[in-house]
């Protein structure tokens, strides 16, 4: 398609590819029962489109044309291979003659995309493979793009994807939207994969930051697709959470690439359109009364988003939301966040007592943000020496460059203040 830009039909094919290739792939996987066969068929179908659309004209339903052409090409290909490999004969028979279109070529296409998502995020696949497979098959990223985004080598990523596809085939992971009874657990895996992709793009802010920003955008796109196909409250809540976090992207790093904490961010840099959309989605999810942890975290982010400043934030409401979140999903990290909110509501000493108690239990001993929180509360309570000791522990645990620079800056300020 190299010379495509000059030819309007080639441009149409390119546009159809961008808009439809993932849907066509999702349906071909269902019809052919095989990921690799479907990917080959997808390529063949678009090659055929480039050859035939200029003469025959663009079909009225390009997607249906691509699906039936891809299916025909795949069966044709298999039939030729079956001459040398008898084991393929039964597969060819099962797929039919390839001339009569399958009855449901264009039905349930949205279901096919949902099937694809649930298959890529099947809990029987290892989590890193779920992420890689989803980005590859659902989002259409190349193996190289995924490898760059996750700072992994392309062969490693490719092998992860090959193994996952091998397991789908060998263990016969079905191409299905899970039954009602299994849906909550299975949806949780899908949401987790999307959130992992988002966080990978959101928390990294050095090195390949541009590519990683794309990961957040990709996660939001996935979140939108899921909400469109399956508007479950927690899917809505996750989309809201991602939008509300994303709205602060430009405020959370300085021009020099340094981390800026929430209370010091220039709130005029927050993206109001994303906040408005995220807040509306939170209200929608909360209204369902079937919400869970993602919706609650989004609700907390929404309270921050509507506050004109850190001081003017409704901290009592945030503490209340953390209480509900702790009941829904008990975790020391949530406890830590709640303690920080309590400090904002009742003063640093009240928060410090809670943080000290959490650290004393040992669960978060290696979590640098727990020591950063402790250090900051000591600093605000005027306990400079304790603050320095805690920041030093945090620095020994922090891995990301902007975070390390932030801690070093704080340490320098405190040491200057003490001396």
């Amino acid at each position: 398609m190299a010379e495509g830009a000059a030819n309007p039909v080639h441009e149409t094919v390119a546009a159809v590819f961008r808009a439809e290739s993932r849907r066509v792939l999702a349906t071909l996987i269902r019809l052919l029962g095989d990921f690799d066969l479907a990917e080959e068929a997808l390529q063949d179908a678009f090659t055929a489109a480039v050859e035939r659309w200029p003469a025959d004209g663009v079909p009225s339903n390009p997607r249906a044309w691509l699906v039936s052409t891809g299916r025909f090409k795949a069966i044709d290909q298999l039939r030729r291979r079956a001459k040398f490999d008898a084991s393929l004969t039964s597969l060819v028979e099962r797929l039919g003659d390839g001339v009569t279109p399958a009855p449901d070529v264009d039905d349930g296409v949205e279901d096919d995309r949902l099937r694809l998502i649930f298959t890529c995020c099947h809990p029987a696949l290892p989590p890193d493979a779920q992420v890689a497979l989803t980005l590859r098959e659902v989002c259409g990223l190349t193996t190289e793009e995924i490898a760059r985004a996750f700072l992994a080598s392309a062969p490693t990523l490719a092998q992860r994807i090959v193994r996952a596809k091998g397991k789908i085939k060998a263990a016969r992971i079905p191409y299905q939207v899970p039954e009602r009874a299994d849906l909550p657990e299975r949806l949780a895996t899908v949401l987790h994969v999307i959130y992992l992709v988002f966080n990978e793009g959101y928390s990294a802010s050095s090195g390949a930051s541009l590519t990683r920003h794309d990961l957040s955008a990709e996660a939001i796109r996935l979140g939108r697709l899921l909400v469109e196909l399956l508007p479950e409250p927690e899917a809505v809540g996750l989309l809201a959470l991602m939008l509300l976090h994303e709205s602060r992207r430009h405020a959370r790093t300085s021009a020099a690439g340094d981390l800026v904490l929430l209370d010091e961010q220039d709130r005029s840099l927050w993206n109001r359109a994303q906040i408005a959309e995220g807040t509306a989605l939170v209200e929608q999810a909360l209204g369902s009364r079937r919400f869970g942890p993602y919706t609650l975290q989004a609700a907390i982010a929404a309270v921050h988003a509507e506050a004109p400043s850190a001081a003017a934030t409704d901290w009592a409401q945030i503490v209340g939301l953390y209480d509900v979140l702790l009941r829904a999903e008990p975790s020391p990290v949530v406890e830590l966040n709640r303690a920080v909110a309590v400090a904002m509501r009742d003063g640093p000493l009240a928060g410090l007592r809670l943080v000290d108690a959490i650290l004393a239990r040992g669960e978060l001993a290696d979590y640098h943000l727990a020591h950063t929180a402790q250090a900051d509360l000591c600093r605000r309570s005027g306990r400079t020496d304790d603050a320095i000791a805690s920041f030093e522990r945090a620095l020994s645990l922090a891995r990301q460059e902007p975070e390390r620079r932030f801690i070093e800056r704080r340490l320098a300020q405190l040491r200057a203040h003490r001396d």
Partner: protein
Amino acid sequence: MKYLCLIYENERNWETMPKEESEAVMGEYFAFTDGLRSSGRYVAGEALQPTQTATTVRVRGGKVSTTDGPFAETKEQLGGFYLVEANDLNEAIQIAARIPSARYGSIEVRPVVDFSQQPEATGQQAATA
């Protein structure tokens, strides 16, 4: 398609379990097996004697070596199995989740190779990622 459900649990649980409780679990096993049989999903199933009865055999350089105990010491031991017929992994997982020991130990679900089918079922396939 056949799946082997391997039942792993800490076999000492059975030794320390009160009699009424172990009888209750055995009752559950009988009911589960009957249900599996009547659903047509049952192919085979056995419970194994504890690992202290196990013997590991190896042949190296044509010589048989025999040692006491299982191949590897682990926290959970293989205690039994069911071979089931299921349409796909989801169905096999649903069956495995109903095995009483799933609540105490864990069930490893493994697809069985069908040599009468495609050779690629052995996992050797030229997939393109």
